[in-house]
């Protein structure tokens, strides 16, 4: 084969959305081997699947951010993940103050630890639990919900919202004519957004008149001339970014870390015995099963050649960070969870100027939650009567995690 010859990728025509959601790894493994930058018909888009190509595109001056079609249909414009230039700079300036490490350090412990304890108290004497629904997701949404100013929205409601927004955002299948293959898949997202607005609009009304220390109140007021606030239509798309990814992913990250540790009982024991290993366990957990598996994209701003593929200006490319983190060019036996693998940086939080803004907050939320879990239940075991299933292509994590312990 000469370098100009393209590999035969007709096998990609057979790949369905359901395949990818059940288990994307086989497809992407083949993509990494045969075509690290390839057009994937079911997604109607180019896909970057290796560590090198993802990193190159995410940090390239010849690309900027673009939201995926299903993402744009779900969030609307201007969502922070899909804008560039001044609007992106303004949105980052709006959200970053609350997420700065020095700021997060001030309150993260007082925020997350009591929440984790509260959920643990509800089941720690039961001897069994389903940790995704009873711990990981609730701690994740409650911590961020309280930070945002959504104290009065029940955790279960926040969980319902992220699940509906998730399915809508990842309703990515395209027809050959570039239309959404399943437009009805956006309905539940639309319903969730309607409900979100019915609850958040009155809060915004209140914050406009009476600013408080909640994040969304700051989003409305910070950096605005006296007497003015940011328009709510301008911030809603980014509120949806939060209510989906930021709400959901720390829960995914915790649950995946736990499943990974359960696959290595001796490593679980090490981490339980030495809580200073929790951050490392989480870093490997989100490498092993990246919560934001393939949800963001970039678009070329001029004709470019990447990984031997010529892309005209304006070509969108989906970033498959979950695949990049299984790149055998970088990790030995990437499908294995291994606390002690050589600790190379991973791409679970993306790269470039659109890299995750919540890394520090997310890592500490997950850390504190797992510290509390292991402290309360040091004799945690996976309930082997129940299997563990992962789901998701855009966002990925275990759907449930049954555990037992002696009480």
């Amino acid at each position, binding site marked *: 084969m000469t370098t100009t010859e393209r590999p035969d990728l007709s096998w990609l025509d057979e790949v369905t959305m359901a395949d990818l959601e059940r288990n994307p790894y086989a497809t992407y493994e083949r993509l990494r081997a045969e075509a690290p930058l390839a057009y994937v018909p079911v997604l109607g888009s180019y896909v970057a699947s290796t560590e090198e190509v993802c990193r190159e595109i995410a*940090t390239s001056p010849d690309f900027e951010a673009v939201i995926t079609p299903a993402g744009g249909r779900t969030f609307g414009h201007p969502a922070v993940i899909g804008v560039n230039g001044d609007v992106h700079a303004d949105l980052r300036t709006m959200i*970053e103050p609350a997420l*700065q*490490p*020095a700021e997060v350090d001030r309150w993260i412990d007082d925020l997350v630890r009591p929440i984790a304890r509260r959920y643990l108290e509800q089941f720690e004497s039961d001897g069994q639990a389903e940790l995704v629904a009873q711990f990981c997701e609730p701690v994740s949404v409650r911590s961020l919900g309280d930070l945002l100013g959504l104290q009065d929205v029940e955790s279960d409601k926040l969980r319902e919202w992220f699940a509906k927004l998730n399915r809508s955002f990842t309703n990515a299948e395209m027809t050959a004519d570039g239309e959404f293959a399943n437009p009805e898949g956006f309905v539940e997202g639309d319903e969730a957004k309607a409900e979100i607005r019915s609850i958040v609009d009155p809060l915004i009304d209140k914050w406009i008149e009476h600013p408080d220390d909640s994040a969304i109140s700051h989003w409305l007021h910070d950096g605005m001339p006296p007497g003015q606030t940011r328009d709510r239509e301008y911030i809603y798309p980014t509120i949806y970014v939060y209510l989906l990814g930021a709400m959901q992913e720390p829960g995914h990250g915790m649950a995946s870390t736990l499943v990974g540790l359960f696959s290595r009982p001796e490593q679980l024991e090490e981490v*339980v*015995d*030495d*809580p*200073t290993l929790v*951050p*490392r366990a989480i*870093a490997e957990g989100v490498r092993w099963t990246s919560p934001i598996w393939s949800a963001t994209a970039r678009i070329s701003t001029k004709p470019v050649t990447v990984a031997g593929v010529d892309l005209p200006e304006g070509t969108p490319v989906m970033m498959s960070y979950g695949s990049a983190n299984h790149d055998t060019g970088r990790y030995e036996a990437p499908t294995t969870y291994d606390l002690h693998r*050589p*600790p*190379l*940086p991973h791409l*679970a*939080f993306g*790269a*470039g100027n659109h*890299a*995750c803004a919540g*890394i*520090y907050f997310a*890592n500490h939320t997950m850390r504190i939650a797992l510290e509390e879990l*292991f*402290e*309360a*239940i*040091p*004799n945690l075991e996976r309930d082997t009567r129940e299997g563990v299933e992962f789901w998701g292509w855009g966002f990925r994590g275990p759907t449930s995690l049954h555990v037992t*312990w*002696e*009480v």
Partner: protein
Amino acid sequence: MTFAVTVGGRSVECGEDQALLDACLRAGVWMPNSCNQGTCGTCKLHVVAGEVDHGSSPVETLSDEERCAGMALACQARPRGDVELRPQGTSAARTANPLRDMVATVREVSDIARDTRRILLGLNEPLTFDAGQYVELVVPGSGERRQYSLANTADEDKVLELHVKLVPGGVATHGWLFDGLAEGDRVDISGPLGDFHLPPESEDDGGPMVLIGGGTGLAPLVGIVRTALRRHPEREVVLYHGVRGEEELYDGDRLTELTEQYPNVRFVPVLSHEPADGYREGFPTDAFVEDVPSARGWTGWLCGPPAMVEAGVKAFKRRRMAPRNIHREKFTPADA
């Protein structure tokens, strides 16, 4: 040009134009990191000694105050010379009792149980230590060093009390401490060493404790339990002494006395191999599991052979003791 970067007791080489994080990760020394582009702050740490060039660390992630306070972003900072780092969140090492080399004089050698001796060592100068720590003895003629735990409380600082078990063929025990050691002998020792001790009094809330000693693993527990009870006479304490047979038990009177002196102390000798009337049978760690339905909020103290300590950790966790409250001292052989 490379410099030495020291973190958590490990030292790695770092090029003058290499990020500290990169050098550490390549050497297999993990430290928290996420973005590797200076924007998330996950890799922030303290520069304890030496100077770094902050490179392109953004002020949004690393403020001027933080720079002045000696913080750096490991993914951005380059060394300007040898540097020592401390990860965030780990507290500065607590001021430890200074380690000293001393010459002690043997005051007393007594056989207190089968293959077990009590050795008292007199010091010229009092030693500052915490109950539960150990000292190292230099075996005369061989240059070998062996560790022995102190059974003393911190105020018993002029005569050190050791409990030693005979190891057949052992350089220190068989060849010296059980053979020829006599009153008046001079012994080279260093100490105190180890972190097997109670927290400072101000941080000791008087919560319940369980202590399990295997054989002469009882030694440091004798110091710890007396210290703990003096601080909080009402506290709940369960002390297990596990040995093979009755003949290996010692200090029973001394420990029974504690149960009379303090209201909430239990002392439970357990025999693993040679059952005898009036004694619990089996392993002390199993006895604990039988006796204590929940150890939530307790602290645990394990000392003795490594296998016993491991079994104890499992037993304590099974009874829901938080691992950070489980203190361990393993009598690991020198050649292990």
